[in-house]
């Protein structure tokens, strides 16, 4: 195409030059593809990713960031305000809050990622089966409706009441509470994909069902599933903190943000810093994941982006 008289970049199209400048409904000609391009076009992705990577760094390298043993007691140095020795102060057992908060990042991130992965995988499987096997669909979806009508936090609390508090059990309880939403989402996508002409085409060409699912259905569920997974990650982190805060989460021996806040609860009016630092870290981490999710949604699903 000879670039003769080009009115505006938006009009760089197959239209003859005589046509009036097109409004911005045509896609830009050169778009950087891939993850890097998406990150450039959607600043929320890069913002969220940078914050999240920072947290990840803190979590992984917690032992080398000037921390001491997060469970070391020092009753003589209880509830010191933030200062040179205790950067974020010390709690009522004399433990260093800075170290506890940094190590706490591990619990939050592990729970967030594990729940997002597990519930996506299980929800995907249930959603695929439900969307493809008519016989099971009714039963499975009634069960999911039932589980969904129990508020997620209460469901997790009820499950945690049955077991000992451990990180594994917390992950399991939150995963079970999140599965219904994922399987509903996947089922909806599968049902609408099954009506698509290209799926009909594949059926007509004699492709077998497992192949159709693998090649045509599965790839198309990945975009909405990824977005959903980030939101689940964010809400799982909040749920974990809430569970620990009310005493139904990780055992008190493990420094998690919810636990640190629970321990600071009794003293928060006089020593607000015990609650303050884990609260700030938790909020920033959840914000990072949510920003990432919003960016991914805009990048992966432009129609949705227009609406929300």
């Amino acid at each position, binding site marked *: 195409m000879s670039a003769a008289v080009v009115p505006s970049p938006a009009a760089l199209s197959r239209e003859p030059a005589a046509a009036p400048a097109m409004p911005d409904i045509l896609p830009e000609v050169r778009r950087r593809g891939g993850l890097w391009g998406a990150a450039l076009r959607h600043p929320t992705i890069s913002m969220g990713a940078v914050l999240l990577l920072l947290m990840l760094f803190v979590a992984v390298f917690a032992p080398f960031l000037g921390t001491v043993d997060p469970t070391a007691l020092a009753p003589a140095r209880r509830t010191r305000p933030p200062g040179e020795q205790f950067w974020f102060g010390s709690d009522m057992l004399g433990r260093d809050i800075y170290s506890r908060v940094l190590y706490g990042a591990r619990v939050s991130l592990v729970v967030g990622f594990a729940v997002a992965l597990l519930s996506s995988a299980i929800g995907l499987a249930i959603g695929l089966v439900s969307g493809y096997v008519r016989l099971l669909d009714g039963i499975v979806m*009634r*069960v999911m*409706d*039932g*589980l969904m*009508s*129990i*508020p*997620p*936090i*209460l*469901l997790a*609390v*009820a*499950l*945690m*009441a*049955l077991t000992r508090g451990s990180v594994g059990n917390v992950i399991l309880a939150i995963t079970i509470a999140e599965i219904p939403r994922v399987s509903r989402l996947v089922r909806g996508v599968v049902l609408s994909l099954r009506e698509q002409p290209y799926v009909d085409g594949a059926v007509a060409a004699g492709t077998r069902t497992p192949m159709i699912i693998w090649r045509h259905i599965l790839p198309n569920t990945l975009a909405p599933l990824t977005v959903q997974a980030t939101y689940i990650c*964010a809400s799982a982190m*909040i749920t974990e*903190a*809430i569970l620990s*805060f*009310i*005493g*139904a989460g990780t055992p008190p021996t493990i420094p998690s943000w919810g636990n640190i*806040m629970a321990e600071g*609860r009794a003293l*928060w*009016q006089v020593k*607000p810093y015990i*609650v*303050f630092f884990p*609260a700030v870290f*938790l*909020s920033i981490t*959840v*914000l990072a994941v*949510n*920003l990432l999710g*919003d960016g991914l949604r805009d990048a992966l699903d432009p129609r949705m982006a*227009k*609406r*929300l």
Partner: protein
Amino acid sequence: MLRYIGQRVLATVPVMAIVALFVFSLLYIAPGDPAAIIAGDQATPDDIARIRESLGLERPFLVRFGEWSWQILNGDLGTSIFTSLPVTALIAQRIEPTLSLMLVTLVLAITVAVPLGVLAAWKAGTWIDRLVMAFAVFGFSVPVFVVAYLLAYVFALELDWLPVQGYTPIANGIWPWLQHLILPSVALGLVYIALIARITRATMLEILSQDYIKTARAKGLGQRAILFLHALKNAAVPIVTVIGIGIALLIGGAVVTESVFVIPGLGRLTIDAILRRDYPVIQGIVLLFSFTYVLVNLGVDLVYTLVDPRIRY
């Protein structure tokens, strides 16, 4: 229409049955043998076996589930292991604060969120819109107890405008009651406000691009009439739906909010029950909240069939 309402009401029955089954299984597999607890420390295994027999604990799962369901339908939620009081009595004692908190939050959230969403949609793309959206992202990200502590610190401890904690029954007067509920409601409502504002904005944006809105503009209708009479009315269904669904957020958040503000409601009851592993109480609370949630959403469904003349079944 009546047939549709009947269908919707009937559709909640299997959902509630599943909830009940789940909650019953919870007690069924809960560690700890009720017979051993009743028998006491001196009991021999024979004694325990006899008590298990008399309590009917040896019978099959489904038989016990049927019997238990019948009790529930008759308003009997069992007896608390720890206090030996009926669970219904415990819930009745604690329900007023929680109900007050949720109602005030609901009213506050709707009156703030809907205008905020409308404003953002009207000013779409401007800094006002961006501000509202940024607020919504923050609302989703800052956990309820963080907001709660922050508000309590600023408005109760530093400024001393409102009480730090506690609850006053409504019988002691409207203002003392409301005064204790303002901070908890704002804290609890933030995520709910974010959710409703976001959906309101999204729906309004879609509707404001419709032809009948252009017609209304063309015939010279005022901005306010267009926004609130034409657009908002048509946006009502998704907004009302999300208000119903979002109740789940309120229920979960209430437990935490009550804990921060030391409100003696169902949330405190839940936490105490967890710490003491008082399964009948946990069971009763989960059942109560879930059934309420199902019924609220049923109500929402029915309300817009009555209100929205476009929905015909």
